[in-house]
């Protein structure tokens, strides 16, 4: 198939490499170096989509990141990605893309009926119409909006691509490789500064690729290529193309998205798809250039209407004519540059200039080439539905209010230039207070906030000579500060054509009797009339107008529309533009793949996984694991076809009758040393610690200053000034920070050191009536009798030559011990315990059995110590010292905490002794009471009691102390259950605690 709009002798594409691709199912050809947009235009395809609201036909408007129209669904290597700008997507062999926003097809779109009903879809339409009746929202409105709206579909498959994050530091970061960026980079690099130069496009050079200028006796493009080639050889310079700096954050941290593989048919092995760079820069040069803005006229969204700079780029970079009968509509000299390029390639353009008598070198050149120029002329409306066929044009009065007689001229594209808008997004994101520059009718950066400087077109300077001068100087000065080198660089001489003042004209008035839609925001279909409505309805703040009309809220973030919107508001409001102000620029500058932001933190990498030293044993023995914070813990050890319920019941029962062993390595452990260690514990825990003898452990509860329980655990006095603290798995890190806080800031006079030893010790809990026999067998030389090692006792032992710590503590409520050895011996210890335990019918038990055992004993854990309960609520008030002061004690006097009917832990048994109560169920007095049914408490933990063989739960219940024996209902709307229950003591098994002391 021929590429009817491709011309010879122009463009930077590789004509030796032909690529085939598919668009909407049809096969086309392009060349290496094309974008999807340039390749489609080369084939004469202008219709690529439908607009968001009215589903009007959409073509191409720009040639890069500012593109509001040509958003496609991309298919690559079995994956699909929505929201891809065809103007940014590089062509590769086998590329497939489809239009979005149209159903059933781009040529016949049912949604376009909105276009004829548009009287119903003015500004605020969604707000006004879809509000009532409320019941319609889910059933009718939302599905309708979802079907009608949207820019493509996200893949529901797992993304096979890899995305990486990288942290980098540099002296000078440069955003944009146009003349300013190149000059700044070169000067700084010559001074030895560490430079990163980022360019979002595949090719370096920015405007130099398309402008007709000379630098140092070379074309602008050749000069740029030379500079880039030299920069690439320098070890202190990183140059990155396809890399968009999209966010400027605090303290000179900028984030850049590098498209590593998007231009290839598939990602190379070991390569990421994208790489996100977090760059901390000492200095930042923003050389992001400017974006041409349109002039607003009737039907200005018709395919074939595009920015004049885009038409020039398609011609000079891609060798593509966007039309063969172009009409150029301009208010400044840039339109002439495009017209000259057309003329040079054998196409006759017509130029309409809104100015009366402009004179400049560029205009002279156009005249000399014999280009047809009409001054004081404007496009009133484009004609044609799926493609521009002609234009209604007219002369315009000097005050720009009166149109002359409407004439119609044939054309197949309208290249429009309403002058240039500096790209100030990064500067504004950094906190720079922007200012309005009258001469260019646009905002430019003002006072720098962070270490940033904006130069060239991004700073509203459109003279190449001045841009190069200031940028070379800035590059030298900024790097000199850092490296203290001062290598002088001679600034090359520049040949450029002088241009004349642009016309402050941005919107063509409607001719009498015509009601053309004049669009401001092309992606969101915001027209002049929508802004007028918003203002008429009382919206004043530009931020409100934006949200009400959705001006500038689409994926292009109004890069081509915002300023014209401001012009309109200021005109209606009779204010100057700076008084209206602009909306806040927020990152990202352009859409960034969610994958790039997430990076490697997906699936198992979304958090670290911690495993105990015994993990491989658990795996070999059919453990079913559960996430406990970042730890993986055995939930139960599956035998045969056992399910969780059966397996955990078996394990728990075996603890109650024989002996079990549980991996408790994950418990937090903190080593506490120093002469004031006891004093610290005494202040941190609610109970007394000064008299704990060496070789004894004690259970303690610690509070936050607000009186809420923070954590519990046992602490053991290993020697005179040495304690071993244990915390819950979940709170380990917080407790350490808590201790450090008090030691470093509140009581620095205490001579104590604390350090985490969680990973240094492996722990095994041995529990059950036969645990002492097993322990004696493991430590034949130690006296582990009830006298030798009483409840809450501690001793050191020798485990087949390995030093072990033995604690007689119990979480299960049975006679129990905890043995710790250094982590490297954890597996050895575990195997010895299993070996020696065989004769006692030992079984390992997981967290589910552990929970069952503690719940039926009424021992509290994280589900009760949930950050909302005080010691009394957990029946721990006996551990609260009345004599000494401690962290949080004063808060316990708060009236709510001492109320007569204060909530308290209770046991809950279903009346039928059959139905398990879902955790989180609410306890209520009357299950038939009208909603909201007053809640008396909630179920914190549930188990199947192995002692009584029926369900048992713990609950935190209002006035729990006086509720024992009451009948209530446990309601779980989530599980749709209502269960009649009886309230019992939380100590369901062994209420006197005799077993642990036996």
């Amino acid at each position: 198939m021929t590429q009817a709009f491709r011309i010879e002798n122009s463009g930077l594409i590789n004509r030796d490499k032909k690529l085939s691709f598919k668009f909407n199912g049809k096969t086309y050809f392009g060349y290496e170096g094309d974008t999807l947009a340039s390749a489609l235009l080369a084939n004469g395809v202008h219709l690529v989509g439908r607009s968001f609201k009215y589903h009007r036909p959409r073509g191409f408007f720009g040639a890069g990141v500012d593109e509001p129209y040509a958003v496609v669904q991309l298919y690559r290597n079995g994956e699909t990605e929505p929201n891809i700008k065809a103007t940014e997507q590089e062509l590769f062999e086998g590329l497939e893309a489809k239009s979005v926003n149209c159903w059933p097809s781009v040529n016949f779109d049912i949604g376009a009926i909105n276009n004829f009903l548009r009287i119903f879809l003015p500004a605020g339409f969604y707000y006004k119409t879809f509000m009532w009746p409320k019941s319609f929202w889910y059933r009718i409105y939302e599905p309708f909006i979802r079907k009608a709206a949207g820019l493509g579909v996200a893949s529901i498959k797992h993304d096979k691509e890899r995305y990486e994050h990288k942290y980098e530091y540099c002296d000078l970061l440069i955003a944009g490789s146009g003349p300013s960026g190149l000059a700044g980079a070169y000067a700084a690099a010559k001074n030895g500064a560490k430079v990163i130069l980022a360019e979002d496009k595949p090719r370096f050079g920015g405007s130099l690729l398309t402008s007709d200028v000379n630098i140092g006796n070379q074309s602008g493009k050749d000069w740029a290529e030379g500079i880039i080639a030299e920069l690439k050889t320098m070890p202190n310079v990183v140059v990155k193309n396809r890399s968009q700096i999209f966010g400027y954050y605090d303290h000179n941290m900028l984030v850049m998205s590098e498209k590593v593989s998007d231009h290839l048919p598939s990602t190379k092995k070991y390569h990421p798809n994208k790489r996100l760079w977090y760059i901390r820069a000492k200095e930042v040069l923003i050389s992001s250039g400017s974006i041409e803005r349109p002039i607003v006229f009737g039907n200005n969204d018709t395919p074939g209407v595009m920015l004049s700079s885009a038409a020039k780029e398609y011609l000079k970079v891609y060798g593509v004519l966007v039309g063969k009968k172009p009409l150029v509509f301009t208010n400044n000299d840039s339109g002439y540059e495009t017209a000259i390029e057309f003329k040079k390639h054998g196409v006759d353009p017509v130029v309409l200039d809104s100015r009366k008598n402009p004179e400049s070198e560029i205009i002279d050149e156009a005249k000399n080439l014999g280009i047809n120029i009409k001054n004081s002329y404007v496009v009133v409306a484009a004609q044609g539905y799926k493609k521009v066929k002609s234009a209604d044009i007219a002369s315009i009065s000097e005050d720009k209010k009166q149109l002359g007689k409407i004439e119609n001229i044939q054309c197949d594209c309208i290249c429009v230039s309403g002058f240039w808008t500096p790209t100030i997004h990064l500067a504004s994101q950094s906190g720079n207070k922007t200012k309005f520059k009258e001469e260019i009718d646009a905002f430019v950066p003002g006072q720098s906030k962070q270490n940033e400087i904006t130069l060239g077109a991004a700073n509203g300077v459109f003279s190449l000579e001045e841009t190069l001068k200031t940028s070379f100087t800035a590059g030298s000065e900024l790097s000199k500060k850092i490296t203290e080198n001062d290598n002088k660089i001679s600034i090359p001489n520049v040949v450029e054509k002088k241009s004349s003042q642009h016309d402050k004209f941005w919107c063509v008035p409607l001719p009498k009797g015509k009601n053309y839609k004049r669009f401001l925001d092309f992606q969101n279909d915001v027209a002049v009339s929508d802004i007028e409505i918003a203002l008429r309805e009382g919206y004043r703040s530009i931020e409100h107008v934006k949200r009400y009309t959705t001006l500038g809220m689409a994926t292009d973030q109004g890069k081509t529309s915002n300023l014209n919107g401001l012009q309109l508001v200021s005109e209606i409001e009779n204010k100057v533009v700076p008084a209206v102000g602009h909306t806040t620029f927020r990152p990202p500058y352009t859409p960034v793949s969610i994958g790039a932001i997430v990076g490697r933190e997906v699936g198992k990498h979304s958090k670290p996984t911690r495993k105990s030293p015994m993990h491989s044993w658990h795996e070999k023995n059919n453990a079913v694991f559960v996430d406990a914070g970042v730890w993986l813990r055995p939930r139960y050890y599956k035998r045969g076809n056992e399910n969780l319920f059966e397996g955990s019941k078996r394990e728990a029962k075996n603890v109650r009758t024989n002996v079990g062993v549980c991996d408790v390595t994950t418990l937090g452990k903190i080593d506490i040393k120093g002469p004031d260690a006891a004093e610290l514990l005494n202040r941190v825990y609610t109970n007394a610690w000064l008299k704990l003898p060496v070789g004894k452990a004690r259970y303690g509860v610690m509070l936050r200053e607000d009186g809420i329980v923070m954590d519990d655990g046992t602490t053991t006095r290993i020697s005179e000034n040495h304690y071993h603290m244990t915390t819950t798995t979940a709170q380990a890190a917080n407790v350490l920070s808590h201790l450090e806080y008090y030691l470093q800031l509140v009581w620095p006079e205490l001579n104590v050191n604390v350090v985490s030893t969680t990973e240094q010790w492996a722990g095994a809990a041995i529990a059950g009536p036969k645990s002492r026999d097993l322990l004696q067998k493991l430590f034949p030389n130690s006296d582990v009798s009830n006298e030798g090692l009483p409840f809450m006792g501690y001793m050191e032992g020798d485990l087949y030559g390995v030093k072990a710590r033995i604690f007689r503590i119990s979480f299960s409520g049975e006679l129990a011990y905890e043995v710790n050895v250094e982590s490297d011996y954890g597996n050895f210890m575990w195997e010895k315990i299993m070996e020696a335990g065989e004769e006692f019918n030992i079984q390992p038990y997981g967290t589910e059995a552990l929970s069952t055992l503690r719940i039926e004993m009424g021992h509290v854990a994280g589900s009760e110590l949930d950050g909302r309960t005080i010691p009394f609520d957990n029946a721990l008030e006996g551990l609260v010292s009345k004599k000494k002061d401690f962290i949080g004690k004063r808060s316990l006097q708060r009236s709510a905490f001492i109320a007569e009917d204060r909530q308290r832990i209770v046991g809950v048994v279903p009346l039928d002794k059959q139905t398990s109560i879902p955790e989180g169920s609410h306890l209520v007095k009357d299950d038939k009471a009208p909603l909201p049914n007053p809640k008396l408490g909630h179920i914190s933990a549930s188990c199947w009691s192995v002692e009584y063989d029926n369900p048992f739960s713990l609950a935190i219940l209002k006035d729990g102390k006086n509720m024992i024996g009451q009948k209530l209902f446990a309601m779980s709307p989530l599980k749709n259950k209502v269960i009649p229950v009886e309230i019992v003591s939380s100590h369901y098994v062994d209420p006197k605690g005799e077993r642990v002391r036996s």
Partner: protein
Amino acid sequence: MLYINCPHCGMRSQNEFSYGGDASVKRPELNKEVSDQEWDNFVYNRKSLRGKHLELWQHISGCRQWIKVERDTATHEIFRTFKADEEVA
């Protein structure tokens, strides 16, 4: 992301630190009678300033020291940092 000068380690990114609130809060001494109002002021009442704020951070993935940071809550500018026991003039 903030760039914080840890007085012990040097310039480090914010993700190595955790925030600890207003550094000007003084805990009432132990074993001292404290009125409800004083205690509430210590536990709950904070000024939520706009502007210069002296606050605590812990260099949790570094030296684990608690430090004081003088930061503008509106602009995020950090003026000075101090060790835990340093007097702030």
